[in-house]
């Protein structure tokens, strides 16, 4: 297999895993904030129907967390198996980020989700709401940490590279984490993620409940539809504002990404540096598609506040998933050919300290094609020797995706079982 084919396979597998993983974890994050909010509204209005909606949605929380978590593991295995040097270096440089995300995010949040789900109706309402918000805070630690890594990829602020003749890649890497925390692309990315997750989940809820209300005229679904539409609108606006801020910072600090997203090089980039920062893919079509999808979702939300249009609801359901996936794929692939974009401030510092040739050497090493290191990568080599392994895997992945979609369809299409309220 050629180098280009191997790079394409690597990127494709990782992109696929992310494309499934991210909408699922967005849903989990959104639900962790929305469920206790529904309970809180129910408590304030003394209306059990809000509790019932929260309870029936908590089932999806378990389902989506489980599958989203698995795809998170798939992402990690692909990163370790296909980009071992990159993942190894990321572990060495950013260990506190992974540590906090996993210990205080995943290890605590997953059992808490189970506890929250199992304790509906088995503990005092106020305590259960507090538990729900506690779960939301803990779960939010995960994107708070992982988005720092994404920001680092956009612009490796705080990183140091020193020439080392003993190093096979010619240099040693280091990082100042406090400086990395000041990454200008980090705050808007984190805000967009949190607001986006809540808006995304609210739109899904509103769309499904609109569909169900149109078919059943059950008031239960009307409440869910209106709640989802209101929350979706509020947090959708925050998401859009944060995204604009994020794109502005990306434009300033990550020229490869900006070029890929907007279709032309940033105006500040001198012509002689353009070959260094030219992206592999022009993804501006995806950016504009995302804008159109956003308008579709907005139209649905405006309608859902007043009436139930089942057809528009289904269009919005598909559109919001496509929008979220499109945005994440855009964010994930716009770096190419780089795994970490050698941003101008970083490159300038390297040129000043060690010369242009060294800066170019570092930049070349940060390319995905260099980091998959096919000459020492056992999985890539095995796929090269036995291509059936890849075909077989891809076939299985397609089957699992179909089962996954079927599972989601069943989860959404089944009517909840009769609910029994036993007020004391």
């Amino acid at each position, binding site marked *: 297999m050629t180098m280009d084919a191997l790079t394409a396979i690597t990127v494709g597998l990782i992109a696929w895993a992310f494309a499934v993983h991210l909408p699922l974890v967005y849903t989990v994050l959104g639900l962790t904030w929305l469920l206790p909010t529904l309970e809180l509204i129910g408590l304030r209005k003394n209306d059990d129907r809000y*509790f019932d909606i929260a309870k029936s949605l908590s*089932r999806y929380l378990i389902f989506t967390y*489980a*599958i989203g*978590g*698995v795809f*998170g*593991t*798939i992402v*990690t*295995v692909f990163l*370790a*198996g*296909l980009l*071992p*040097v990159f993942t*190894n*270096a*990321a*572990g*060495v440089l950013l*260990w506190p980020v992974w*540590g906090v995300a*996993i210990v205080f995010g*995943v*290890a605590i*949040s*997953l*059992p*808490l*989700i*189970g506890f929250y789900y*199992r304790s509906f*109706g*088995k503990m005092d309402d106020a305590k259960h709401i507090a538990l729900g918000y506690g779960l939301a805070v803990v779960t939010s630690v995960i994107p708070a940490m992982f988005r720092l890594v994404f920001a680092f990829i956009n612009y490796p602020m705080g990183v140091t590279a*020193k020439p080392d003749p*003993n*190093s*096979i*890649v010619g*240099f*040693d*890497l280091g990082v100042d984490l406090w400086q990395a925390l000041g990454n200008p692309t980090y705050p808007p990315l984190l805000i967009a993620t949190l607001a986006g997750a809540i808006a995304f989940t609210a739109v899904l809820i509103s769309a499904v409940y609109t569909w169900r209300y149109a078919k059943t005229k059950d008031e239960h679904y009307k409440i869910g539809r209106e709640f989802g539409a209101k929350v979706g609108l509020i947090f959708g606006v925050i998401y859009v504002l944060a995204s604009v801020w994020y794109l502005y910072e990306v434009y300033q600090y990550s020229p490869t990404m900006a070029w890929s997203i907007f279709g032309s090089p940033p105006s500040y980039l001198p012509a002689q540096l353009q070959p260094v920062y030219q992206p592999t893919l022009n993804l501006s079509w995806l950016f504009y598609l995302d804008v159109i999808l956003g308008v579709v979702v907005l139209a649905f939300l405006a309608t859902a506040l007043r009436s139930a249009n089942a057809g528009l609801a289904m269009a919005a359901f598909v559109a919001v998933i496509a929008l979220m996936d499109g945005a994440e794929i855009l964010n994930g692939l716009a770096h190419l050919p780089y795994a970490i974009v050698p941003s101008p401030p970083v490159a300038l510092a390297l040129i000043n300290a060690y010369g242009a040739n060294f800066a170019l050497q570092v930049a070349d090493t940060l390319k995905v094609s260099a980091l998959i*290191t096919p000459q*020492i*990568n*056992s*999985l890539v*080599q*095995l796929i090269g*020797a*036995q291509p059936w392994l890849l075909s077989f895997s891809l076939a299985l992945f397609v089957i699992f995706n179909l089962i*996954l979609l079927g*599972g989601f369809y069943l*989860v959404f299409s089944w009517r909840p079982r009769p609910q*029994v*309220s*036993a*007020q*004391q």
Partner: protein
Amino acid sequence: MPDPSIQLDLARLVTAVGVLAHVSLASSFLGTIALAVIGEYIWLRRQDKEWLDLAKKFNVVATIFFGVGAAFGTLVEFGLVTIWSNFIAIIGTAIALPFFLELFAFLFEVIFLPLYTFTWNRISKWAHWTIGLLAAIGGYYSAYNILAVMSTLSVAPPGLTLVNLAEQGKNVAGAINWLAAFQTPTDAWNIFWWGANVFIFHGILAAVILSWSGVAGVVMYLYIKEKKSWQVKLLKVVVPTIAVLTAIQGLLLGHLQGELVLEHDPLKLAALEGMYWSGLRTDPLTSFVAYGDFNHQFWGYYSWPADIRPPEFVSVFYLGFMVGAGILLGILTAGIGLYLLFGWFRRIVQPLLKPSVYLIPLLAALAAVGGAVSTESGRYPFILVQSVPSADGPPQIVGVPVYQGGLFNPTLQLDPLLATLIIIVEIAMPALAGYMVYLALAKPPKLLKRLVEY
């Protein structure tokens, strides 16, 4: 900044507690999902509703253990990235295959287990059972692949070459000093060589014995209190099976594994068997177990340099806990099993029933912990252990070291406070899983403001 050796010890402690917690949760999942599928099968064949109720209960319990166990799997995985970060380069250059295949197992589990849980009475009975079976297969195949990796840590598979970059005055980006590679790309399949399969099935049976022993203890406690028919039915399946599996462990798989250790890591054998001497000496008992005679000589523990010797305590975990507790567990469950099935040994067994509530789980736990600690600490300070014959002395033991310059993250700063916090989380989460199981199985509380079935 704490002393590097203290950091290493703290990292090992954090990892050991995390791995043991994960193993206990994963074992509990393997055991309970098997009981759910077996219970549903018996219900389908006999139409005995008590088995249906049992299958549903075990399904819920299995789901809880899976959820918390999966979180721990992620914790362990990121423990590798953060603490033993240079293991990632070893994975990428040599042992990515089982991790890759494990993804399919994981997909099986995560898709079919929720389907199994949410489709009781919603689809045809046999279709539902098949979904449960697929979820269980996913769980066992996942264990298969991860145990293949564990086996590789203990004994390097055939064809694996270790590359010490530091010896050549090289590194990668100032962080990576070791790589590993197979001679040809297709040798990556050697990870599943027959020796690994011995290790794997030894581990899988240990998981089932451990979890079923826990179930046996709880059900026996309930049986002594309540004497209900479902309790006898379940005990008749679980207890004799533990006895049979324990016998297979000791007489077949354990023996084969001992032979592998003898051949591939004689230093580990010396540590496990407590051969505390220097040079060659006859050990009649080990000779008999290994070769069937009393005359063979073995290299003693002190024949190797101190810096590569595993800790001396491993013999306690091996001989005292794993072998000793394992033998007692086999005898106890065989006796109770024969009593439950045929009414034999009534006089001897009946007084033992009450203490067995605690003895069966305790012995199984001791044997499991003993096995895990002796296996993993017995290879310390190396992974991917290889034995190289030497003309004038004991075989040379080589591998990738876990300390600084090997797997250990060179930038990690792990102080005692942080380590304590992580260990608290590691212990608290299985405890929470236990509480969730209790909540799931306990009768609904009498005073409830809002009771909803879902």
